[in-house]
Protein backbone atom coordinates (compact mmCIF):
# COMPACT_ATOMS: atom_id res chain seq x y z
CA UNK A 1 0.00 0.00 0.00
CA UNK A 2 1.35 3.44 -0.90
CA UNK A 3 1.98 5.52 2.21
CA UNK A 4 3.68 8.51 0.70
CA UNK A 5 3.75 9.79 -2.83
CA UNK A 6 5.70 12.64 -4.38
CA UNK A 7 4.30 13.84 -7.67
CA UNK A 8 6.47 15.91 -9.99
CA UNK A 9 8.08 17.99 -7.21
CA UNK A 10 9.90 21.03 -8.60
CA UNK A 11 11.81 23.62 -6.64
CA UNK A 12 13.67 26.75 -7.73
CA UNK A 13 16.16 28.84 -5.80
CA UNK A 14 17.41 32.36 -6.26
CA UNK A 15 21.13 32.25 -6.78
CA UNK A 16 22.80 35.64 -7.31
CA UNK A 17 19.69 36.88 -9.02
CA UNK A 18 19.51 33.82 -11.24
CA UNK A 19 16.77 31.28 -10.98
CA UNK A 20 18.32 27.93 -10.27
CA UNK A 21 16.27 24.78 -10.57
CA UNK A 22 17.14 22.39 -7.76
CA UNK A 23 14.44 19.79 -8.22
CA UNK A 24 13.37 18.99 -11.73
CA UNK A 25 10.27 16.91 -11.03
CA UNK A 26 10.72 14.25 -8.41
CA UNK A 27 8.36 11.29 -8.61
CA UNK A 28 8.52 8.78 -5.81
CA UNK A 29 6.18 6.23 -4.29
CA UNK A 30 6.92 4.85 -0.85
CA UNK A 31 5.03 1.87 0.50
CA UNK A 32 3.87 1.58 4.08
CA UNK A 33 6.74 0.28 6.21
CA UNK A 34 9.31 0.76 3.47
CA UNK A 35 12.86 1.90 4.13
CA UNK A 36 13.96 4.10 1.24
CA UNK A 37 17.37 5.71 0.98
CA UNK A 38 17.93 8.77 -1.19
CA UNK A 39 21.43 9.21 -2.56
CA UNK A 40 22.79 11.82 -4.93
CA UNK A 41 25.66 14.18 -5.60
CA UNK A 42 26.07 16.90 -2.99
CA UNK A 43 23.89 19.92 -3.66
CA UNK A 44 21.44 17.92 -5.75
CA UNK A 45 18.52 18.93 -3.57
CA UNK A 46 17.81 15.69 -1.74
CA UNK A 47 17.68 17.52 1.58
CA UNK A 48 15.40 20.11 0.04
CA UNK A 49 13.15 17.32 -1.12
CA UNK A 50 13.02 15.94 2.42
CA UNK A 51 12.13 19.37 3.81
CA UNK A 52 9.33 19.62 1.26
CA UNK A 53 7.99 16.23 2.36
CA UNK A 54 8.18 17.48 5.97
CA UNK A 55 6.19 20.56 4.97
CA UNK A 56 9.01 22.92 6.00
CA UNK A 57 9.46 24.15 2.42
CA UNK A 58 6.88 24.59 -0.33
CA UNK A 59 7.46 23.08 -3.76
CA UNK A 60 7.09 25.39 -6.77
CA UNK A 61 5.25 22.64 -8.54
CA UNK A 62 3.85 19.20 -7.76
CA UNK A 63 2.43 17.77 -4.58
CA UNK A 64 3.08 15.42 -1.71
CA UNK A 65 0.38 12.89 -0.86
CA UNK A 66 0.21 11.10 2.46
CA UNK A 67 -2.30 8.23 2.41
CA UNK A 68 -3.58 9.77 -0.80
CA UNK A 69 -4.28 13.16 0.75
CA UNK A 70 -2.19 16.21 -0.20
CA UNK A 71 -0.09 17.72 2.58
CA UNK A 72 1.29 21.27 2.52
CA UNK A 73 1.97 22.03 6.17
CA UNK A 74 4.23 20.45 8.77
CA UNK A 75 2.61 17.77 10.84
CA UNK A 76 3.52 15.24 13.51
CA UNK A 77 2.79 12.49 10.96
CA UNK A 78 6.09 13.36 9.19
CA UNK A 79 8.99 14.01 11.54
CA UNK A 80 12.41 15.08 10.34
CA UNK A 81 15.67 14.13 12.06
CA UNK A 82 18.26 16.78 11.26
CA UNK A 83 21.89 16.21 10.36
CA UNK A 84 23.13 18.00 13.46
CA UNK A 85 20.21 16.82 15.56
CA UNK A 86 18.92 20.33 16.20
CA UNK A 87 18.42 19.46 19.85
CA UNK A 88 17.43 22.29 22.14
CA UNK A 89 20.38 23.19 24.39
CA UNK A 90 18.13 24.83 26.99
CA UNK A 91 16.33 21.57 27.70
CA UNK A 92 17.42 18.39 29.39
CA UNK A 93 17.49 15.21 27.32
CA UNK A 94 14.15 14.07 28.70
CA UNK A 95 12.52 17.43 27.97
CA UNK A 96 13.95 17.39 24.46
CA UNK A 97 12.40 13.97 23.93
CA UNK A 98 9.06 15.09 25.36
CA UNK A 99 8.99 18.37 23.44
CA UNK A 100 6.56 17.33 20.72
CA UNK A 101 4.28 15.61 23.22
CA UNK A 102 4.17 18.73 25.35
CA UNK A 103 3.32 20.86 22.32
CA UNK A 104 0.51 18.42 21.54
CA UNK A 105 -0.84 19.02 25.06
CA UNK A 106 -0.34 15.48 26.34
CA UNK A 107 -0.48 15.37 30.17
CA UNK A 108 2.72 14.97 32.16
CA UNK A 109 2.17 11.43 33.41
CA UNK A 110 1.45 10.14 29.93
CA UNK A 111 4.42 12.03 28.53
CA UNK A 112 6.86 10.48 30.98
CA UNK A 113 5.49 7.04 30.24
CA UNK A 114 6.04 7.45 26.50
CA UNK A 115 9.43 9.15 26.78
CA UNK A 116 10.63 6.50 29.21
CA UNK A 117 9.91 3.81 26.65
CA UNK A 118 11.88 5.52 23.89
CA UNK A 119 14.73 6.65 26.13
CA UNK A 120 15.05 3.01 27.05
CA UNK A 121 14.90 1.88 23.41
CA UNK A 122 17.66 4.33 22.49
CA UNK A 123 19.71 3.44 25.60
CA UNK A 124 19.48 6.97 26.91
CA UNK A 125 17.85 6.36 30.28
CA UNK A 126 20.88 7.30 32.32
CA UNK A 127 21.32 10.52 30.35
CA UNK A 128 17.72 11.65 30.84
CA UNK A 129 18.69 14.50 33.17
CA UNK A 130 21.74 15.61 31.16
CA UNK A 131 21.95 18.71 29.04
CA UNK A 132 22.80 18.20 25.40
CA UNK A 133 26.31 19.66 25.53
CA UNK A 134 27.25 16.83 27.89
CA UNK A 135 26.49 14.25 25.20
CA UNK A 136 28.70 12.88 22.44
CA UNK A 137 27.61 13.41 18.84
CA UNK A 138 26.34 9.84 18.68
CA UNK A 139 24.29 10.25 21.84
CA UNK A 140 22.84 13.48 20.47
CA UNK A 141 21.63 11.65 17.38
CA UNK A 142 20.05 9.00 19.57
CA UNK A 143 18.17 11.76 21.39
CA UNK A 144 17.12 13.25 18.05
CA UNK A 145 15.77 9.87 16.93
CA UNK A 146 13.96 9.32 20.24
CA UNK A 147 12.48 12.82 19.98
CA UNK A 148 11.08 11.92 16.57
CA UNK A 149 9.82 8.47 17.53
CA UNK A 150 7.80 9.58 20.57
CA UNK A 151 5.42 11.34 18.22
CA UNK A 152 4.75 8.01 16.51
CA UNK A 153 5.00 9.56 13.03
CA UNK A 154 3.72 7.69 9.98
CA UNK A 155 6.87 8.64 8.14
CA UNK A 156 10.30 9.21 9.62
CA UNK A 157 12.45 11.56 7.55
CA UNK A 158 16.18 11.45 8.17
CA UNK A 159 18.58 13.99 6.71
CA UNK A 160 22.10 12.53 6.82
CA UNK A 161 21.71 11.89 10.54
CA UNK A 162 24.96 9.94 10.87
CA UNK A 163 27.19 12.10 8.65
CA UNK A 164 28.99 13.75 11.57
CA UNK A 165 29.68 10.53 13.48
CA UNK A 166 32.91 8.59 13.75
CA UNK A 167 32.97 5.22 11.98
CA UNK A 168 32.50 3.01 15.05
CA UNK A 169 29.53 4.99 16.34
CA UNK A 170 28.01 5.11 12.88
CA UNK A 171 28.30 1.35 12.35
CA UNK A 172 26.60 0.79 15.68
CA UNK A 173 23.78 3.17 14.89
CA UNK A 174 23.34 1.73 11.40
CA UNK A 175 22.59 -1.66 12.94
CA UNK A 176 20.38 -0.14 15.63
CA UNK A 177 18.48 1.84 13.04
CA UNK A 178 17.52 -1.43 11.32
CA UNK A 179 16.35 -2.92 14.61
CA UNK A 180 14.30 0.18 15.39
CA UNK A 181 12.76 0.01 11.95
CA UNK A 182 11.85 -3.66 12.42
CA UNK A 183 10.40 -2.95 15.84
CA UNK A 184 8.41 0.15 14.99
CA UNK A 185 7.44 -0.72 11.38
CA UNK A 186 7.92 2.93 10.43
CA UNK A 187 8.08 4.15 6.88
CA UNK A 188 11.51 5.74 6.58
CA UNK A 189 12.97 8.15 4.05
CA UNK A 190 16.69 8.42 4.62
CA UNK A 191 18.96 10.92 2.85
CA UNK A 192 22.64 10.09 2.66
CA UNK A 193 25.63 10.66 0.40
CA UNK A 194 27.26 7.51 1.73
CA UNK A 195 26.74 4.56 -0.61
CA UNK A 196 27.69 1.94 2.00
CA UNK A 197 25.15 3.45 4.41
CA UNK A 198 22.44 3.32 1.74
CA UNK A 199 23.22 -0.32 0.93
CA UNK A 200 23.04 -1.24 4.60
CA UNK A 201 19.79 0.50 5.40
CA UNK A 202 17.58 0.63 2.36
CA UNK A 203 15.01 -1.76 1.01
CA UNK A 204 15.21 0.53 -1.92
CA UNK A 205 17.78 3.13 -2.90
CA UNK A 206 16.67 6.03 -5.08
CA UNK A 207 19.53 7.68 -6.95
CA UNK A 208 19.14 11.40 -7.68
CA UNK A 209 20.61 12.98 -10.80
CA UNK A 210 22.61 16.19 -10.75
CA UNK A 211 20.61 19.46 -10.74
CA UNK A 212 17.86 19.89 -11.77
CA UNK A 213 17.38 16.57 -10.04
CA UNK A 214 15.07 13.78 -10.88
CA UNK A 215 15.17 10.22 -9.67
CA UNK A 216 17.40 8.38 -12.08
CA UNK A 217 17.02 4.86 -10.85
CA UNK A 218 15.60 2.89 -7.97
CA UNK A 219 17.65 -0.06 -6.81
CA UNK A 220 15.94 -2.78 -4.81
CA UNK A 221 18.05 -4.36 -2.07
CA UNK A 222 16.50 -7.62 -1.06
CA UNK A 223 18.95 -8.91 1.48
CA UNK A 224 18.71 -10.34 5.01
CA UNK A 225 18.77 -8.09 8.08
CA UNK A 226 20.30 -6.81 10.20
CA UNK A 227 23.01 -6.04 7.72
CA UNK A 228 26.43 -5.20 9.11
CA UNK A 229 29.01 -2.98 7.50
CA UNK A 230 31.59 -5.82 7.29
CA UNK A 231 29.27 -7.96 5.16
CA UNK A 232 31.06 -8.34 1.83
CA UNK A 233 27.92 -9.36 -0.01
CA UNK A 234 26.69 -5.79 0.31
CA UNK A 235 29.47 -4.55 -1.97
CA UNK A 236 27.55 -5.88 -4.95
CA UNK A 237 24.74 -3.45 -4.13
CA UNK A 238 27.20 -0.67 -3.43
CA UNK A 239 28.70 -1.18 -6.90
CA UNK A 240 25.25 -1.03 -8.41
CA UNK A 241 24.48 2.26 -6.66
CA UNK A 242 27.90 3.70 -7.49
CA UNK A 243 27.52 2.85 -11.16
CA UNK A 244 24.43 5.07 -11.25
CA UNK A 245 25.82 7.75 -9.00
CA UNK A 246 29.31 8.25 -10.41
CA UNK A 247 28.33 10.00 -13.68
CA UNK A 248 26.06 12.35 -11.70
CA UNK A 249 28.82 13.30 -9.28
CA UNK A 250 31.13 13.92 -12.24
CA UNK A 251 28.50 16.09 -13.92
CA UNK A 252 28.05 18.14 -10.76
CA UNK A 253 31.74 19.04 -10.47
Amino acid at each position, binding site marked *: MTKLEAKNIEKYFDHDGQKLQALGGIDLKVNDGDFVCLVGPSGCGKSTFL*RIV*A*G*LDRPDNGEILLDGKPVTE*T*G*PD*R*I*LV*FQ*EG*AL*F*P*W*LKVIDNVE*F*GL*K*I*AGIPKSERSEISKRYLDMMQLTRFAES*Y*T*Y*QLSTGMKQRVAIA*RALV*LDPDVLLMDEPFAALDTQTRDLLLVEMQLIWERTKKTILFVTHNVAEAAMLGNRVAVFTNRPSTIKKEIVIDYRRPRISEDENLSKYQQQILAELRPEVKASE
Partner: protein
Amino acid sequence: MKKNHTWKRIVFYIALVAVWQAFDSANIWPDQVFPSPLEVGEDLVYSAADGSLFFGIGTSMWRLIVGLAIAIGGGMVLGIFMARVETINQTIGSLVLGLQSIPSVAWVPLAIIWFGLTDAGIIFVTAMGALFAVTINTYSGVKNIDPNFIAAARNMGAKGEQLITSVLIPAAFPYMISGFKQGWAFAWRGVIGAELLFSFLGLGFLLNVGRQLSDVSQVIAIMIVVMAIGILIDGFVFRRIENTVMSRWGLR
Protein backbone atom coordinates in the same frame (compact mmCIF):
# COMPACT_ATOMS: atom_id res chain seq x y z
CA MET B 1 42.82 31.84 40.87
CA LYS B 2 39.52 33.25 42.14
CA LYS B 3 40.94 33.76 45.62
CA ASN B 4 43.93 35.57 44.22
CA HIS B 5 41.55 37.84 42.35
CA THR B 6 39.63 38.74 45.51
CA TRP B 7 42.84 39.49 47.40
CA LYS B 8 44.03 41.84 44.71
CA ARG B 9 40.77 43.69 44.96
CA ILE B 10 40.85 44.00 48.72
CA VAL B 11 44.39 45.33 48.62
CA PHE B 12 43.43 47.78 45.90
CA TYR B 13 40.51 49.24 47.84
CA ILE B 14 42.52 49.53 51.04
CA ALA B 15 45.21 51.35 49.08
CA LEU B 16 42.59 53.61 47.50
CA VAL B 17 41.21 54.63 50.90
CA ALA B 18 44.75 55.14 52.20
CA VAL B 19 45.60 57.47 49.30
CA TRP B 20 42.34 59.30 49.85
CA GLN B 21 43.20 59.72 53.55
CA ALA B 22 46.69 60.90 52.64
CA PHE B 23 45.27 63.63 50.38
CA ASP B 24 42.90 64.67 53.14
CA SER B 25 45.73 64.79 55.73
CA ALA B 26 47.80 66.95 53.39
CA ASN B 27 45.08 69.63 53.77
CA ILE B 28 45.25 70.75 50.17
CA TRP B 29 41.53 71.43 49.98
CA PRO B 30 39.15 72.49 52.77
CA ASP B 31 36.97 69.83 54.38
CA GLN B 32 33.73 71.23 52.84
CA VAL B 33 35.14 70.40 49.41
CA PHE B 34 37.15 67.26 50.08
CA PRO B 35 35.97 65.12 53.01
CA SER B 36 38.00 62.39 54.68
CA PRO B 37 37.01 58.73 54.28
CA LEU B 38 35.99 58.77 57.94
CA GLU B 39 33.55 61.65 57.42
CA VAL B 40 31.97 59.87 54.49
CA GLY B 41 31.81 56.68 56.55
CA GLU B 42 30.15 58.54 59.43
CA ASP B 43 27.63 60.00 57.07
CA LEU B 44 26.79 56.52 55.82
CA VAL B 45 26.37 55.27 59.39
CA TYR B 46 24.13 58.20 60.37
CA SER B 47 21.90 57.93 57.34
CA ALA B 48 21.70 54.18 57.88
CA ALA B 49 20.88 54.67 61.56
CA ASP B 50 18.04 57.14 60.97
CA GLY B 51 16.71 54.95 58.17
CA SER B 52 16.85 57.64 55.49
CA LEU B 53 19.45 55.67 53.53
CA PHE B 54 17.40 52.48 53.41
CA PHE B 55 14.27 54.41 52.59
CA GLY B 56 16.16 56.07 49.74
CA ILE B 57 17.49 52.74 48.47
CA GLY B 58 14.06 51.14 48.75
CA THR B 59 12.38 53.96 46.85
CA SER B 60 14.94 53.97 44.05
CA MET B 61 14.94 50.18 43.77
CA TRP B 62 11.19 50.02 43.62
CA ARG B 63 11.11 52.54 40.76
CA LEU B 64 13.91 50.68 39.05
CA ILE B 65 12.22 47.32 39.28
CA VAL B 66 8.90 48.57 37.92
CA GLY B 67 10.62 50.53 35.14
CA LEU B 68 12.91 47.69 34.19
CA ALA B 69 10.06 45.17 34.24
CA ILE B 70 8.13 47.34 31.79
CA ALA B 71 11.25 47.70 29.63
CA ILE B 72 11.96 43.97 29.63
CA GLY B 73 8.36 43.03 28.84
CA GLY B 74 7.98 45.68 26.14
CA GLY B 75 11.47 45.17 24.74
CA MET B 76 10.99 41.44 24.37
CA VAL B 77 7.70 41.82 22.54
CA LEU B 78 9.08 44.56 20.29
CA GLY B 79 12.34 42.68 19.63
CA ILE B 80 10.60 39.42 18.75
CA PHE B 81 8.22 41.12 16.35
CA MET B 82 11.04 43.06 14.74
CA ALA B 83 12.97 39.84 14.19
CA ARG B 84 10.02 37.86 12.86
CA VAL B 85 8.08 40.43 10.81
CA GLU B 86 10.18 42.14 8.16
CA THR B 87 7.82 45.12 7.76
CA ILE B 88 7.99 45.89 11.48
CA ASN B 89 11.77 45.71 11.33
CA GLN B 90 11.96 48.05 8.34
CA THR B 91 9.66 50.62 9.95
CA ILE B 92 9.71 50.51 13.74
CA GLY B 93 13.19 48.97 13.68
CA SER B 94 14.79 52.11 12.27
CA LEU B 95 12.98 54.23 14.85
CA VAL B 96 14.21 52.00 17.68
CA LEU B 97 17.82 52.49 16.58
CA GLY B 98 17.29 56.26 16.68
CA LEU B 99 15.50 56.25 20.03
CA GLN B 100 18.29 54.16 21.55
CA SER B 101 20.70 57.04 21.09
CA ILE B 102 18.63 59.30 23.38
CA PRO B 103 20.14 59.34 26.90
CA SER B 104 17.54 58.41 29.50
CA VAL B 105 17.62 61.79 31.30
CA ALA B 106 16.60 63.42 28.03
CA TRP B 107 13.18 61.84 28.61
CA VAL B 108 12.78 63.83 31.87
CA PRO B 109 11.17 66.97 30.41
CA LEU B 110 8.61 64.86 28.57
CA ALA B 111 8.00 62.80 31.70
CA ILE B 112 7.33 65.94 33.75
CA ILE B 113 4.92 67.31 31.15
CA TRP B 114 3.07 64.01 30.77
CA PHE B 115 3.12 62.64 34.31
CA GLY B 116 4.01 65.62 36.52
CA LEU B 117 6.39 65.20 39.45
CA THR B 118 5.21 61.67 40.22
CA ASP B 119 6.60 58.18 40.60
CA ALA B 120 5.06 57.41 37.23
CA GLY B 121 7.26 60.08 35.65
CA ILE B 122 10.44 58.56 37.09
CA ILE B 123 9.35 55.06 36.10
CA PHE B 124 8.70 56.33 32.60
CA VAL B 125 12.24 57.71 32.35
CA THR B 126 13.67 54.46 33.72
CA ALA B 127 11.67 52.31 31.33
CA MET B 128 12.52 54.42 28.28
CA GLY B 129 16.20 54.29 29.21
CA ALA B 130 16.22 50.49 29.24
CA LEU B 131 13.57 49.63 26.65
CA PHE B 132 15.62 49.90 23.48
CA ALA B 133 18.67 48.06 24.77
CA VAL B 134 16.40 45.13 25.62
CA THR B 135 14.64 45.44 22.24
CA ILE B 136 17.82 45.45 20.18
CA ASN B 137 19.39 42.53 22.04
CA THR B 138 16.20 40.49 21.82
CA TYR B 139 16.08 41.25 18.11
CA SER B 140 19.67 40.05 17.56
CA GLY B 141 18.99 37.03 19.74
CA VAL B 142 15.97 35.92 17.73
CA LYS B 143 17.71 36.71 14.43
CA ASN B 144 20.64 34.52 15.41
CA ILE B 145 18.64 31.46 16.39
CA ASP B 146 19.82 28.36 14.55
CA PRO B 147 17.14 28.05 11.83
CA ASN B 148 17.07 24.30 12.44
CA PHE B 149 15.74 24.91 15.98
CA ILE B 150 12.76 26.71 14.51
CA ALA B 151 12.33 24.16 11.73
CA ALA B 152 12.47 21.28 14.23
CA ALA B 153 9.96 22.96 16.51
CA ARG B 154 7.57 23.68 13.64
CA ASN B 155 8.00 20.12 12.47
CA MET B 156 6.97 18.89 15.92
CA GLY B 157 3.85 21.00 15.79
CA ALA B 158 4.84 24.26 17.49
CA LYS B 159 3.36 27.42 16.05
CA GLY B 160 2.28 30.92 17.05
CA GLU B 161 2.43 31.57 20.75
CA GLN B 162 3.82 28.12 21.55
CA LEU B 163 6.69 28.64 19.12
CA ILE B 164 7.49 31.97 20.79
CA THR B 165 7.41 30.76 24.39
CA SER B 166 8.88 27.31 23.92
CA VAL B 167 11.56 28.04 21.32
CA LEU B 168 12.13 31.68 20.33
CA ILE B 169 12.52 33.04 23.86
CA PRO B 170 14.66 30.25 25.32
CA ALA B 171 16.79 30.04 22.17
CA ALA B 172 17.40 33.80 22.18
CA PHE B 173 17.92 33.94 25.93
CA PRO B 174 21.73 34.14 25.95
CA TYR B 175 21.44 37.35 23.91
CA MET B 176 18.48 38.60 25.88
CA ILE B 177 20.46 38.33 29.09
CA SER B 178 22.98 40.85 27.77
CA GLY B 179 20.03 43.03 26.85
CA PHE B 180 18.69 42.80 30.41
CA LYS B 181 22.13 43.62 31.78
CA GLN B 182 22.51 46.64 29.56
CA GLY B 183 18.92 47.60 30.23
CA TRP B 184 19.49 47.39 33.97
CA ALA B 185 22.58 49.61 33.72
CA PHE B 186 20.68 52.22 31.69
CA ALA B 187 17.68 51.97 34.01
CA TRP B 188 19.81 52.50 37.10
CA ARG B 189 21.39 55.61 35.56
CA GLY B 190 17.92 56.71 34.50
CA VAL B 191 16.42 56.38 37.97
CA ILE B 192 19.20 58.31 39.69
CA GLY B 193 19.23 60.97 36.99
CA ALA B 194 15.48 61.43 37.07
CA GLU B 195 15.40 61.55 40.85
CA LEU B 196 18.05 64.29 40.83
CA LEU B 197 15.90 66.42 38.55
CA PHE B 198 12.49 65.53 39.99
CA SER B 199 13.77 66.05 43.53
CA PHE B 200 11.55 63.89 45.60
CA LEU B 201 12.66 60.80 47.50
CA GLY B 202 15.14 58.16 46.37
CA LEU B 203 18.93 58.10 46.19
CA GLY B 204 19.07 60.74 43.46
CA PHE B 205 17.03 63.00 45.71
CA LEU B 206 19.46 62.41 48.60
CA LEU B 207 22.31 63.36 46.27
CA ASN B 208 20.54 66.60 45.47
CA VAL B 209 19.84 67.31 49.15
CA GLY B 210 23.54 66.83 49.82
CA ARG B 211 24.36 69.41 47.18
CA GLN B 212 21.79 71.89 48.51
CA LEU B 213 23.19 71.57 52.04
CA SER B 214 26.74 71.69 50.67
CA ASP B 215 27.22 68.40 52.50
CA VAL B 216 29.96 66.90 50.38
CA SER B 217 30.26 63.80 52.60
CA GLN B 218 26.64 62.94 51.91
CA VAL B 219 27.12 63.42 48.18
CA ILE B 220 30.07 61.06 48.09
CA ALA B 221 28.42 58.61 50.49
CA ILE B 222 25.38 58.33 48.22
CA MET B 223 27.56 57.97 45.14
CA ILE B 224 29.32 55.07 46.81
CA VAL B 225 25.96 53.49 47.61
CA VAL B 226 24.80 53.89 43.99
CA MET B 227 27.99 52.24 42.80
CA ALA B 228 27.82 49.45 45.36
CA ILE B 229 24.26 48.59 44.37
CA GLY B 230 25.38 48.57 40.75
CA ILE B 231 28.13 46.10 41.48
CA LEU B 232 25.92 43.91 43.67
CA ILE B 233 23.05 43.62 41.18
CA ASP B 234 25.38 43.00 38.28
CA GLY B 235 27.33 40.35 40.19
CA PHE B 236 24.59 38.63 42.11
CA VAL B 237 21.63 38.85 39.77
CA PHE B 238 22.79 39.10 36.20
CA ARG B 239 26.10 37.32 36.31
CA ARG B 240 24.44 34.45 38.12
CA ILE B 241 21.66 34.09 35.55
CA GLU B 242 24.23 34.41 32.79
CA ASN B 243 26.43 31.69 34.29
CA THR B 244 23.50 29.33 34.68
CA VAL B 245 22.40 29.81 31.09
CA MET B 246 25.91 29.60 29.64
CA SER B 247 26.81 26.44 31.51
CA ARG B 248 23.51 24.82 30.58
CA TRP B 249 24.25 25.51 26.93
CA GLY B 250 27.79 24.24 27.39
CA LEU B 251 29.19 27.59 26.35
CA ARG B 252 31.43 27.82 29.39
